[in-house]
């Protein structure tokens, strides 16, 4: 969204500030003050006139967002996926998603799950259109031992690999813990897409920049829920501020034994799962 700009501006200013310091060493203290004065921000992100980011009613130091997924509840209706596509102008094709749902099916006598998602050609054929999503009833003639759905989205990692590898600082972490993209500053190298272990990013050809879930940052900073959370009919998606002890997400984490995806990556994801098993990665 267009609101995703300030922190990278901040980073640029910091860099320019450092350049200013180098210049200061060369040209003397008076020049230094002039250079720094020209580039360094005068106010911090939460206060000054240009820092109405993301809105003047929102203080990002008072929030620490987190997301919960209860896979036991998910029914694979894919309303979340369609809501997300509409809300965030995600291209209407079955190959690019900010959020998606995976289906895990264990057939009788088998030790490994059959996994598919709505991008699977069989499921696309069943939906009838590339911008409509549903799971085909492809296992109706088999004996299913266990089956469940797993919604996926950007994990807004505590240590995001995508932020680490971005060569220009166009993808960055906000103070409330969401990873955003400044697509105007992005060069479109796609290193971040390669670095994400979760496949959460896709490349938007029209904008020449990657895109991914940002937990509907334009909504959550205005007191709304992410579109997928609102659309979920069974409450499989939980969202909230971890700084508030009684928020839905705090209760979700406190009252359940939660796990994260691929913890061995060291990314420290902030999407917490309940009801997934060994096959989910």
């Amino acid at each position, binding site marked *: 969204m267009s609101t995703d700009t300030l922190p990278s501006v901040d980073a640029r200013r910091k860099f320019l500030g450092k350049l200013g310091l180098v210049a200061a060493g060369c040209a003397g203290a008076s020049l230094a003050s002039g250079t720094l004065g020209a580039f360094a921000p005068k106010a911090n992100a939460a206060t000054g006139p240009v820092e109405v980011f993301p809105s003047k009613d929102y203080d990002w130091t008072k929030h620490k967002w987190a997301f919960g997924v209860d896979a036991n509840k998910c029914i694979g209706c894919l309303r979340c996926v369609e809501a997300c596509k509409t809300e965030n102008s995600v291209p209407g094709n079955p190959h690019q998603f900010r959020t998606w749902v995976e289906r895990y099916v264990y057939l009788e006598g088998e030790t490994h799950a059959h996994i598919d998602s709505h991008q699977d050609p069989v499921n696309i054929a069943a939906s009838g259109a590339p911008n409509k999503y549903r799971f085909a009833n492809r296992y109706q003639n088999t004996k299913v031992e266990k089956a469940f759905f797993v919604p996926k989205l950007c994990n807004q990692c505590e240590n995001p690999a995508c932020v680490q590898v971005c*060569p220009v600082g166009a993808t960055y972490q906000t103070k409330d813990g969401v990873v955003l993209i400044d697509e105007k500053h992005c060069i*479109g190298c796609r290193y971040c897409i390669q670095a994400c272990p979760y*496949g959460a990013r896709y490349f938007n050809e029209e904008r020449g920049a990657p895109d991914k879930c940002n937990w509907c940052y334009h909504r959550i900073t205005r007191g709304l829920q992410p579109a997928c959370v609102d659309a979920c009919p069974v409450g499989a998606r939980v969202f909230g501020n971890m700084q508030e002890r009684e928020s839905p997400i705090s209760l979700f984490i406190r009252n359940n034994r939660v796990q994260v995806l691929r913890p061995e990556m060291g990314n420290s994801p902030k999407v917490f799962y309940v009801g997934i098993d060994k096959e989910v990665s």
Partner: protein
Amino acid sequence: METHAHWAQYTGWVFPNETIIDWTVLLAVYPYLTGLVAGAFTVSSLYQVFGFERLRPVAHLALLTSLSCMLFVPLPLLLHLGQPLNAMNAMITPHLTSAMAMFGFFATFYVVLLMLELWFAYRPFIVEQAQKRTDLLGKVYKLLTLGSYDVSERALAIDKKWVFWLAVIGIPGAHGLHGYVGFLFGSLKSREWWSSDLMPVIFLFSAIISGVSLLIVLYVVTCKLRRVEIDLACLKGMAYTVWAFIMVAFVLEWLEFANIVYKGREGVDMIMEFVTGPLLVPYFVLQFGIGAALPMLWLTYMIWRGTTGRALVVGVTTSASLVLFSVFMMRWNVVIGGQQLSKTGRGLVFYDLPFWGQEGALVAILLTIAPLVVLWILTKVFPPWDDSHGHHGSDGHSHGTPGLAAAH
């Protein structure tokens, strides 16, 4: 904006967003060119710094080759960027935790270093031409003298020192640049095929053999074109270099593969399915078999039997061509192969290389050939030939560089 995305076919389970191969053939051309830069520079350094006298006939050609390739290194990247007009952001606002952020600085540093070294190496020649010629090119040479016409013994001794020290700095410069390209891939933990500590070293050694091989081919071809006798000692020197480094490269690449298989981490089943299926020919047959094992055995045989004359020329040139092909296949198998293996570890994506288009085969081929065209032009302006000990061309005209004799 033109849309380049096309959906890739896949088998097994892959993440929905993975059904587009994001890094195309251009991203394989990029490390290939960088490797040629480092490899060609190695040859020049072996002569300038380590005193390998027999490499003298290609010492200047090596520098020009390195520069020609280096000038084109950023182009595949630029053609690939989603917002090429933002490219300079990488230098204006570098994000220092990114392995990619330093590329622009390293590349610029290296280009400047190469130009400086070339200037010092060619200075006597430039001065001579500036004084001799009255045409437009003469004016160019005049400009290139930068106002310094001093070719006294003392001045040349200083030049020589500069060339030596620039070559010394250039060794870590060129090799660091390429090891760094290997790090770009090796440091990504998201893909088992890339995530390897050995990756930078493998890139480095394969770079050296590719650059030296390119010089072998260039040297033999230019000798034939100029109807100059090939200096077999020089050719053998380069063949030894390839032979020595190819063994290390070969062992390292196998070690890496053995590591992946032996550790057997999550996703290894899919890797095995991959290398015994779609990657069988590109990886085992082309990269390892025909491209590496065959030239290695051939070179070993020639060195063992003391092959000389035409058989040596044919053998070494063919081996070098095979190595050039093998190293490209290595880049391909790393860059494209790595993306074909899904991050899920349970699926394979297929890359369909288009011929036309901004990121198609034609552009990739043109990008690989373009440095050779620039090199051809550069050799016209700065003749790198050292014919002082060989036979001159049939036209009796020597293109020998006075600077070569004077600068060293």
